[in-house]
Protein backbone atom coordinates (compact mmCIF):
# COMPACT_ATOMS: atom_id res chain seq x y z
CA UNK A 1 0.00 0.00 0.00
CA UNK A 2 2.75 2.40 0.98
CA UNK A 3 6.35 2.18 -0.09
CA UNK A 4 8.97 4.64 1.01
CA UNK A 5 11.99 4.62 -1.24
CA UNK A 6 15.19 6.28 -0.17
CA UNK A 7 13.50 9.20 1.51
CA UNK A 8 15.84 11.91 2.72
CA UNK A 9 14.63 14.82 4.76
CA UNK A 10 16.32 17.71 6.46
CA UNK A 11 15.81 20.68 8.74
CA UNK A 12 17.81 23.46 7.16
CA UNK A 13 21.03 21.90 6.05
CA UNK A 14 21.05 19.07 8.53
CA UNK A 15 19.84 15.76 7.17
CA UNK A 16 17.65 13.93 9.62
CA UNK A 17 16.52 11.05 7.44
CA UNK A 18 19.13 9.34 5.31
CA UNK A 19 17.59 7.29 2.53
CA UNK A 20 14.95 5.51 4.54
CA UNK A 21 13.34 2.47 2.88
CA UNK A 22 10.14 1.13 4.28
CA UNK A 23 7.01 -0.67 3.26
CA UNK A 24 3.54 -0.95 4.68
CA UNK A 25 1.17 -3.50 3.19
CA UNK A 26 -2.55 -3.02 3.13
CA UNK A 27 -4.18 -4.13 6.35
CA UNK A 28 -0.97 -4.29 8.33
CA UNK A 29 0.00 -2.75 11.59
CA UNK A 30 3.60 -1.65 11.28
CA UNK A 31 5.48 -0.38 14.32
CA UNK A 32 8.37 2.02 14.14
CA UNK A 33 10.69 2.17 17.12
CA UNK A 34 13.80 4.16 17.85
CA UNK A 35 15.27 6.35 20.51
CA UNK A 36 14.85 10.11 21.04
CA UNK A 37 15.87 11.98 17.95
CA UNK A 38 16.06 8.94 15.69
CA UNK A 39 13.78 10.63 13.21
CA UNK A 40 10.50 8.80 13.73
CA UNK A 41 8.46 11.95 13.94
CA UNK A 42 10.26 13.41 10.98
CA UNK A 43 9.44 10.34 8.94
CA UNK A 44 5.74 10.55 9.74
CA UNK A 45 5.75 14.28 8.98
CA UNK A 46 7.33 13.54 5.64
CA UNK A 47 4.66 10.96 4.90
CA UNK A 48 1.82 13.30 5.69
CA UNK A 49 3.52 16.06 3.75
CA UNK A 50 4.00 18.76 6.39
CA UNK A 51 7.74 18.20 6.10
CA UNK A 52 9.20 18.23 2.59
CA UNK A 53 11.20 15.27 1.36
CA UNK A 54 14.57 16.27 0.02
CA UNK A 55 14.85 13.25 -2.22
CA UNK A 56 13.35 9.82 -2.64
CA UNK A 57 9.89 8.59 -3.45
CA UNK A 58 6.76 7.89 -1.50
CA UNK A 59 4.33 5.66 -3.32
CA UNK A 60 0.83 5.31 -1.95
CA UNK A 61 -1.50 2.87 -3.68
CA UNK A 62 0.60 3.01 -6.79
CA UNK A 63 0.79 6.80 -6.95
CA UNK A 64 3.88 8.87 -6.21
CA UNK A 65 2.73 11.37 -3.57
CA UNK A 66 5.95 12.93 -2.34
CA UNK A 67 5.20 16.18 -4.16
CA UNK A 68 1.59 16.46 -3.05
CA UNK A 69 0.37 18.99 -0.54
CA UNK A 70 -0.76 17.60 2.82
CA UNK A 71 -4.42 18.18 2.06
CA UNK A 72 -4.13 16.23 -1.14
CA UNK A 73 -2.68 13.33 0.80
CA UNK A 74 -5.55 13.50 3.26
CA UNK A 75 -7.95 13.23 0.35
CA UNK A 76 -6.12 10.08 -0.75
CA UNK A 77 -6.65 8.55 2.66
CA UNK A 78 -3.64 9.34 4.81
CA UNK A 79 -4.32 10.79 8.22
CA UNK A 80 -2.00 11.53 11.10
CA UNK A 81 -2.25 11.94 14.82
CA UNK A 82 0.74 14.17 15.45
CA UNK A 83 3.30 14.24 18.21
CA UNK A 84 2.52 16.78 20.85
CA UNK A 85 -1.22 16.49 20.23
CA UNK A 86 -1.62 19.74 18.29
CA UNK A 87 -5.29 20.24 19.02
CA UNK A 88 -7.15 23.36 17.88
CA UNK A 89 -7.00 24.97 21.31
CA UNK A 90 -9.74 27.61 21.20
CA UNK A 91 -12.16 25.36 19.29
CA UNK A 92 -14.53 23.01 21.04
CA UNK A 93 -13.84 19.30 21.29
CA UNK A 94 -16.63 18.57 18.87
CA UNK A 95 -15.39 21.13 16.35
CA UNK A 96 -11.95 19.56 16.58
CA UNK A 97 -13.44 16.22 15.68
CA UNK A 98 -15.59 17.62 12.90
CA UNK A 99 -12.55 19.26 11.42
CA UNK A 100 -10.89 15.87 11.50
CA UNK A 101 -13.46 14.93 8.90
CA UNK A 102 -12.80 18.10 6.90
CA UNK A 103 -12.12 16.11 3.74
CA UNK A 104 -14.65 13.41 4.48
CA UNK A 105 -18.01 15.10 4.87
CA UNK A 106 -19.99 11.99 4.14
CA UNK A 107 -22.91 10.12 5.59
CA UNK A 108 -20.60 8.09 7.76
CA UNK A 109 -19.36 11.06 9.72
CA UNK A 110 -22.04 10.88 12.37
CA UNK A 111 -21.22 7.24 12.95
CA UNK A 112 -17.52 7.94 13.22
CA UNK A 113 -18.19 10.67 15.70
CA UNK A 114 -20.20 8.27 17.81
CA UNK A 115 -17.45 5.74 17.45
CA UNK A 116 -14.85 8.17 18.76
CA UNK A 117 -17.13 9.15 21.61
CA UNK A 118 -17.61 5.51 22.43
CA UNK A 119 -13.88 4.96 22.43
CA UNK A 120 -13.25 8.02 24.61
CA UNK A 121 -16.43 8.76 26.58
CA UNK A 122 -14.78 11.69 28.30
CA UNK A 123 -14.65 13.51 24.97
CA UNK A 124 -18.40 13.22 24.63
CA UNK A 125 -18.77 14.61 28.09
CA UNK A 126 -16.59 17.61 27.20
CA UNK A 127 -17.71 18.08 23.62
CA UNK A 128 -18.59 21.75 24.05
CA UNK A 129 -15.44 22.65 25.94
CA UNK A 130 -12.46 24.38 24.34
CA UNK A 131 -9.82 21.81 23.54
CA UNK A 132 -7.13 23.75 25.34
CA UNK A 133 -8.79 23.26 28.69
CA UNK A 134 -8.60 19.48 28.41
CA UNK A 135 -6.01 17.62 30.42
CA UNK A 136 -2.95 16.36 28.60
CA UNK A 137 -4.24 12.85 28.23
CA UNK A 138 -7.64 14.06 27.14
CA UNK A 139 -6.00 16.12 24.42
CA UNK A 140 -4.12 13.04 23.29
CA UNK A 141 -7.43 11.21 22.98
CA UNK A 142 -8.77 14.10 20.98
CA UNK A 143 -5.81 14.03 18.62
CA UNK A 144 -6.31 10.32 17.98
CA UNK A 145 -10.04 10.75 17.62
CA UNK A 146 -9.54 13.58 15.16
CA UNK A 147 -7.30 11.43 13.01
CA UNK A 148 -9.92 8.70 13.03
CA UNK A 149 -12.60 11.12 11.88
CA UNK A 150 -10.90 11.31 8.50
CA UNK A 151 -11.79 7.66 7.90
CA UNK A 152 -8.27 7.07 6.65
CA UNK A 153 -6.98 4.14 4.69
CA UNK A 154 -3.59 4.64 6.29
CA UNK A 155 -3.42 5.95 9.81
CA UNK A 156 -0.16 7.43 11.08
CA UNK A 157 0.01 7.45 14.86
CA UNK A 158 2.87 9.31 16.53
CA UNK A 159 3.17 8.09 20.09
CA UNK A 160 -0.54 7.65 20.68
CA UNK A 161 -0.03 6.38 24.22
CA UNK A 162 1.92 9.43 25.31
CA UNK A 163 0.44 10.78 28.51
CA UNK A 164 -2.35 8.24 28.64
CA UNK A 165 -3.25 6.36 31.78
CA UNK A 166 -2.28 2.67 31.65
CA UNK A 167 -5.88 1.62 31.38
CA UNK A 168 -6.25 3.73 28.29
CA UNK A 169 -3.03 2.48 26.79
CA UNK A 170 -4.62 -0.94 26.76
CA UNK A 171 -7.71 0.48 25.16
CA UNK A 172 -5.78 2.35 22.51
CA UNK A 173 -3.85 -0.69 21.52
CA UNK A 174 -7.03 -2.69 21.42
CA UNK A 175 -8.58 0.00 19.30
CA UNK A 176 -5.70 -0.12 16.87
CA UNK A 177 -6.30 -3.82 16.52
CA UNK A 178 -9.98 -3.16 15.94
CA UNK A 179 -9.11 -0.66 13.24
CA UNK A 180 -7.01 -3.26 11.57
CA UNK A 181 -9.99 -5.55 11.62
CA UNK A 182 -11.98 -2.83 9.86
CA UNK A 183 -9.36 -2.79 7.15
CA UNK A 184 -7.45 0.31 8.17
CA UNK A 185 -3.70 0.16 7.81
CA UNK A 186 -1.67 1.62 10.68
CA UNK A 187 1.85 2.91 10.93
CA UNK A 188 2.57 3.22 14.62
CA UNK A 189 5.40 5.11 16.29
CA UNK A 190 5.68 4.17 19.93
CA UNK A 191 8.05 4.57 22.80
CA UNK A 192 6.19 1.83 24.53
CA UNK A 193 7.97 -0.52 22.16
CA UNK A 194 7.07 -3.77 23.78
CA UNK A 195 3.36 -3.05 23.62
CA UNK A 196 3.62 -1.73 20.08
CA UNK A 197 5.61 -4.64 18.78
CA UNK A 198 3.24 -7.02 20.50
CA UNK A 199 0.34 -5.91 18.34
CA UNK A 200 2.33 -5.16 15.19
CA UNK A 201 2.53 -7.43 12.22
CA UNK A 202 5.92 -6.05 11.37
CA UNK A 203 8.29 -3.48 12.76
CA UNK A 204 11.21 -1.26 11.81
CA UNK A 205 13.95 0.05 14.01
CA UNK A 206 15.18 3.54 13.19
CA UNK A 207 18.55 4.81 14.36
CA UNK A 208 19.82 8.29 13.55
CA UNK A 209 17.73 8.51 10.45
CA UNK A 210 18.41 5.04 9.06
CA UNK A 211 16.45 1.81 9.16
CA UNK A 212 18.77 -0.58 10.95
CA UNK A 213 16.48 -3.51 11.46
CA UNK A 214 13.17 -4.89 10.32
CA UNK A 215 11.15 -7.96 10.88
CA UNK A 216 7.93 -9.34 12.24
CA UNK A 217 6.69 -7.91 15.51
CA UNK A 218 7.43 -11.07 17.38
CA UNK A 219 10.88 -11.44 15.89
CA UNK A 220 11.87 -7.94 16.93
CA UNK A 221 10.41 -8.43 20.38
CA UNK A 222 12.70 -11.35 20.82
CA UNK A 223 15.72 -9.82 19.20
CA UNK A 224 18.37 -9.44 21.89
CA UNK A 225 19.59 -6.12 20.55
CA UNK A 226 16.12 -4.65 20.53
CA UNK A 227 15.48 -6.04 23.96
CA UNK A 228 18.46 -4.30 25.49
CA UNK A 229 18.36 -1.08 23.48
CA UNK A 230 14.63 -0.34 23.46
CA UNK A 231 12.78 -2.60 25.81
CA UNK A 232 15.14 -2.25 28.72
CA UNK A 233 15.11 -5.95 29.44
Amino acid at each position, binding site marked *: MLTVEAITSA*YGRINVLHEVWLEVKAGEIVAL*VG*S*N*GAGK*TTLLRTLSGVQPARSGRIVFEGEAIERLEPHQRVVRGISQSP*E*GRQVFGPLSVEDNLRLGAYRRQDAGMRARLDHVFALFP*VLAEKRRIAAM*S*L*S*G*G*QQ*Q*MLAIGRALMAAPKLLLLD*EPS*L*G*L*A*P*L*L*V*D*QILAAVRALQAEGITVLLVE*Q*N*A*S*AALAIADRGYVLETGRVVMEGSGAALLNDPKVR*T*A*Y*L*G*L
Partner: protein
Amino acid sequence: MSLLEVRDMGISFGGLRAVDGVSFTVEAGQVFSIIGPNGAGKTTLFNLVTGIYRPSRGKVTLAGADMTGLAPHLLVRRGMARTFQNLQVFFRMSAVENVMVGCHLAERTSFLADLLGLPSVARQNKVTREHALALLGRVGLAHLADASAGALPYGALKRLEIARALAASPKVLLLDEPAAGCNAVETEAIDHLIADIAKAGVGVVLIEHDMKLVMKISDRVLVLAQGRPLAEGPPRVVRENPQVIAAYLGDHGAREADRAHG
Protein backbone atom coordinates in the same frame (compact mmCIF):
# COMPACT_ATOMS: atom_id res chain seq x y z
CA MET B 1 7.38 19.27 60.31
CA SER B 2 7.21 17.95 56.78
CA LEU B 3 8.99 19.60 53.89
CA LEU B 4 5.89 20.16 51.79
CA GLU B 5 2.40 20.04 53.17
CA VAL B 6 -0.67 20.42 51.03
CA ARG B 7 -3.95 20.67 52.93
CA ASP B 8 -7.41 20.36 51.47
CA MET B 9 -6.68 21.88 48.10
CA GLY B 10 -9.57 22.70 45.82
CA ILE B 11 -10.49 24.59 42.65
CA SER B 12 -13.37 24.52 40.18
CA PHE B 13 -13.62 25.47 36.54
CA GLY B 14 -17.13 26.50 35.71
CA GLY B 15 -18.83 23.88 37.84
CA LEU B 16 -16.23 21.19 37.32
CA ARG B 17 -14.43 20.42 40.56
CA ALA B 18 -11.08 19.73 38.99
CA VAL B 19 -9.36 19.35 42.38
CA ASP B 20 -11.52 18.74 45.37
CA GLY B 21 -10.08 18.40 48.85
CA VAL B 22 -6.65 16.91 48.25
CA SER B 23 -4.06 16.72 51.02
CA PHE B 24 -0.63 15.20 51.13
CA THR B 25 2.79 15.69 52.66
CA VAL B 26 6.23 15.15 51.23
CA GLU B 27 9.41 14.69 53.22
CA ALA B 28 12.88 15.69 52.18
CA GLY B 29 14.59 12.97 50.22
CA GLN B 30 11.31 11.30 49.42
CA VAL B 31 9.77 10.54 46.02
CA PHE B 32 6.07 11.15 46.25
CA SER B 33 4.07 10.13 43.19
CA ILE B 34 0.65 11.24 42.08
CA ILE B 35 -1.16 9.01 39.65
CA GLY B 36 -4.68 8.80 38.38
CA PRO B 37 -6.75 8.68 35.23
CA ASN B 38 -6.51 11.37 32.59
CA GLY B 39 -8.29 14.44 33.77
CA ALA B 40 -8.09 13.39 37.41
CA GLY B 41 -6.69 16.78 38.32
CA LYS B 42 -3.00 15.98 38.76
CA THR B 43 -1.64 18.79 36.63
CA THR B 44 -4.20 21.16 38.08
CA LEU B 45 -2.99 20.20 41.54
CA PHE B 46 0.55 21.08 40.48
CA ASN B 47 -0.69 24.39 39.14
CA LEU B 48 -2.31 25.10 42.49
CA VAL B 49 0.73 24.18 44.50
CA THR B 50 3.11 26.19 42.33
CA GLY B 51 1.00 29.32 42.33
CA ILE B 52 -0.15 29.31 38.70
CA TYR B 53 -3.76 28.93 39.75
CA ARG B 54 -5.15 30.54 42.86
CA PRO B 55 -6.78 27.83 44.97
CA SER B 56 -10.38 28.40 46.03
CA ARG B 57 -9.57 26.56 49.20
CA GLY B 58 -6.68 24.85 50.93
CA LYS B 59 -3.22 25.64 52.09
CA VAL B 60 0.34 24.96 51.01
CA THR B 61 3.24 25.09 53.43
CA LEU B 62 6.87 24.61 52.59
CA ALA B 63 9.19 23.87 55.48
CA GLY B 64 6.52 25.22 57.77
CA ALA B 65 6.00 28.52 55.98
CA ASP B 66 2.67 29.34 54.36
CA MET B 67 3.01 29.54 50.59
CA THR B 68 -0.64 29.61 49.59
CA GLY B 69 -1.36 31.92 46.71
CA LEU B 70 2.22 33.13 46.40
CA ALA B 71 3.26 34.13 42.87
CA PRO B 72 5.21 31.44 41.02
CA HIS B 73 8.48 33.34 40.94
CA LEU B 74 8.34 33.84 44.70
CA LEU B 75 7.68 30.17 45.25
CA VAL B 76 10.82 29.33 43.31
CA ARG B 77 12.72 31.60 45.62
CA ARG B 78 11.43 29.61 48.56
CA GLY B 79 12.62 26.41 46.97
CA MET B 80 9.93 25.01 44.73
CA ALA B 81 10.67 24.16 41.10
CA ARG B 82 8.74 22.22 38.52
CA THR B 83 8.50 20.94 34.98
CA PHE B 84 5.48 21.15 32.73
CA GLN B 85 3.38 18.52 31.07
CA ASN B 86 2.78 20.81 28.11
CA LEU B 87 6.34 21.74 27.32
CA GLN B 88 7.29 25.24 28.35
CA VAL B 89 10.67 25.52 26.74
CA PHE B 90 12.38 28.72 25.59
CA PHE B 91 12.39 27.61 21.99
CA ARG B 92 14.42 30.49 20.63
CA MET B 93 17.30 29.86 23.00
CA SER B 94 19.91 27.15 22.98
CA ALA B 95 19.68 24.20 25.33
CA VAL B 96 22.33 25.52 27.66
CA GLU B 97 20.74 28.98 27.76
CA ASN B 98 17.48 27.37 28.79
CA VAL B 99 19.23 25.93 31.79
CA MET B 100 21.10 29.16 32.45
CA VAL B 101 17.74 30.89 32.79
CA GLY B 102 16.97 28.33 35.45
CA CYS B 103 20.00 29.57 37.37
CA HIS B 104 18.48 33.04 37.53
CA LEU B 105 18.04 33.06 41.27
CA ALA B 106 21.61 32.17 42.01
CA GLU B 107 22.97 34.90 39.81
CA ARG B 108 24.52 37.75 41.73
CA THR B 109 24.27 40.70 39.39
CA SER B 110 22.06 43.73 39.37
CA PHE B 111 20.15 45.35 36.58
CA LEU B 112 22.55 48.27 36.61
CA ALA B 113 25.60 46.02 36.47
CA ASP B 114 24.01 44.18 33.55
CA LEU B 115 23.31 47.42 31.75
CA LEU B 116 26.85 48.68 32.24
CA GLY B 117 28.38 45.34 31.36
CA LEU B 118 30.60 45.30 34.45
CA PRO B 119 33.25 42.59 34.59
CA SER B 120 31.27 40.90 37.32
CA VAL B 121 28.58 40.12 34.76
CA ALA B 122 31.01 38.29 32.53
CA ARG B 123 32.29 36.35 35.52
CA GLN B 124 28.76 35.50 36.53
CA ASN B 125 27.91 34.37 33.01
CA LYS B 126 30.86 32.05 33.06
CA VAL B 127 29.88 30.55 36.38
CA THR B 128 26.28 30.15 35.31
CA ARG B 129 27.21 28.53 32.05
CA GLU B 130 29.46 26.03 33.71
CA HIS B 131 26.79 25.14 36.21
CA ALA B 132 24.24 24.77 33.40
CA LEU B 133 26.56 22.56 31.40
CA ALA B 134 27.05 20.33 34.40
CA LEU B 135 23.30 20.02 34.80
CA LEU B 136 22.86 19.21 31.12
CA GLY B 137 25.42 16.50 31.59
CA ARG B 138 23.44 15.17 34.47
CA VAL B 139 20.32 14.72 32.35
CA GLY B 140 22.34 13.36 29.46
CA LEU B 141 22.14 16.31 27.11
CA ALA B 142 25.69 17.63 27.29
CA HIS B 143 26.26 16.91 23.62
CA LEU B 144 23.29 19.12 22.66
CA ALA B 145 24.26 22.09 24.81
CA ASP B 146 24.56 24.58 21.98
CA ALA B 147 21.75 23.23 19.85
CA SER B 148 18.70 25.43 19.55
CA ALA B 149 15.96 24.14 21.82
CA GLY B 150 13.55 24.38 18.91
CA ALA B 151 15.48 21.63 17.16
CA LEU B 152 15.51 19.10 19.99
CA PRO B 153 13.43 15.94 19.85
CA TYR B 154 10.54 15.60 22.26
CA GLY B 155 12.23 13.31 24.74
CA ALA B 156 15.21 15.62 25.03
CA LEU B 157 12.99 18.58 25.78
CA LYS B 158 11.47 16.79 28.74
CA ARG B 159 14.93 16.26 30.18
CA LEU B 160 15.89 19.83 29.37
CA GLU B 161 13.04 20.97 31.58
CA ILE B 162 14.30 18.80 34.40
CA ALA B 163 17.75 20.33 34.10
CA ARG B 164 16.26 23.80 34.13
CA ALA B 165 14.18 23.04 37.20
CA LEU B 166 17.22 21.59 38.96
CA ALA B 167 19.13 24.76 38.20
CA ALA B 168 17.01 26.57 40.75
CA SER B 169 18.42 24.26 43.43
CA PRO B 170 14.96 23.46 44.73
CA LYS B 171 14.03 21.87 48.00
CA VAL B 172 10.96 20.42 46.36
CA LEU B 173 10.90 19.41 42.73
CA LEU B 174 7.61 18.75 40.97
CA LEU B 175 7.86 16.70 37.80
CA ASP B 176 4.85 16.40 35.49
CA GLU B 177 5.26 13.28 33.35
CA PRO B 178 9.03 13.50 32.93
CA ALA B 179 9.23 10.16 31.14
CA ALA B 180 6.54 10.84 28.57
CA GLY B 181 8.02 10.29 25.15
CA CYS B 182 10.90 8.22 26.37
CA ASN B 183 11.39 4.57 25.65
CA ALA B 184 12.07 1.99 28.31
CA VAL B 185 15.82 2.49 28.29
CA GLU B 186 15.60 6.25 28.42
CA THR B 187 13.02 6.00 31.15
CA GLU B 188 15.44 4.00 33.18
CA ALA B 189 17.97 6.81 32.93
CA ILE B 190 15.35 9.22 34.23
CA ASP B 191 14.56 6.81 36.96
CA HIS B 192 18.19 6.92 38.15
CA LEU B 193 18.24 10.66 37.83
CA ILE B 194 15.17 11.08 40.04
CA ALA B 195 16.52 8.67 42.59
CA ASP B 196 19.76 10.68 42.66
CA ILE B 197 17.93 13.92 43.14
CA ALA B 198 15.95 12.52 46.01
CA LYS B 199 19.05 11.04 47.55
CA ALA B 200 20.52 14.53 47.65
CA GLY B 201 17.70 15.52 50.00
CA VAL B 202 15.24 17.03 47.59
CA GLY B 203 11.60 16.16 47.99
CA VAL B 204 10.35 14.99 44.60
CA VAL B 205 6.70 15.08 43.62
CA LEU B 206 6.14 13.04 40.49
CA ILE B 207 3.22 12.74 38.13
CA GLU B 208 3.69 9.85 35.77
CA HIS B 209 1.73 7.27 33.84
CA ASP B 210 4.68 4.91 33.48
CA MET B 211 3.88 2.45 36.21
CA LYS B 212 7.21 0.73 36.08
CA LEU B 213 8.87 3.99 36.94
CA VAL B 214 6.36 5.01 39.56
CA MET B 215 6.29 1.77 41.42
CA LYS B 216 10.02 1.40 41.38
CA ILE B 217 11.12 4.71 42.78
CA SER B 218 8.21 6.08 44.78
CA ASP B 219 8.20 6.14 48.53
CA ARG B 220 4.52 6.92 48.59
CA VAL B 221 1.84 7.11 45.94
CA LEU B 222 -1.31 9.19 45.91
CA VAL B 223 -4.07 8.17 43.52
CA LEU B 224 -6.47 10.83 42.34
CA ALA B 225 -9.69 10.30 40.50
CA GLN B 226 -12.07 13.05 39.45
CA GLY B 227 -10.28 15.54 41.59
CA ARG B 228 -10.52 13.50 44.78
CA PRO B 229 -8.05 11.19 46.49
CA LEU B 230 -8.82 7.58 45.76
CA ALA B 231 -6.01 5.91 47.66
CA GLU B 232 -2.70 6.75 49.22
CA GLY B 233 0.12 4.61 50.51
CA PRO B 234 3.29 2.79 49.63
CA PRO B 235 3.46 1.59 46.03
CA ARG B 236 2.97 -2.02 46.95
CA VAL B 237 -0.30 -1.29 48.68
CA VAL B 238 -1.63 1.06 46.10
CA ARG B 239 -1.05 -1.17 43.15
CA GLU B 240 -3.05 -3.92 44.71
CA ASN B 241 -6.01 -1.74 45.53
CA PRO B 242 -8.82 -3.10 43.35
CA GLN B 243 -10.37 0.34 42.99
CA VAL B 244 -7.10 1.66 41.64
CA ILE B 245 -6.81 -1.22 39.25
CA ALA B 246 -10.33 -0.71 38.01
CA ALA B 247 -10.16 3.04 37.65
CA TYR B 248 -6.63 3.45 36.49
CA LEU B 249 -4.20 0.64 36.14
CA GLY B 250 -6.11 -1.91 34.14
CA ASP B 251 -4.44 -5.19 33.32
CA HIS B 252 -1.56 -3.68 31.49
CA GLY B 253 -0.79 -1.16 34.20
CA ALA B 254 -0.99 -3.76 36.91
CA ARG B 255 1.38 -5.96 34.94
CA GLU B 256 3.81 -3.12 34.44
CA ALA B 257 3.57 -2.23 38.08
CA ASP B 258 4.32 -5.77 39.03
CA ARG B 259 7.24 -5.91 36.72
CA ALA B 260 8.80 -2.97 38.52
CA HIS B 261 9.12 -4.98 41.62
CA GLY B 262 9.67 -8.12 39.62
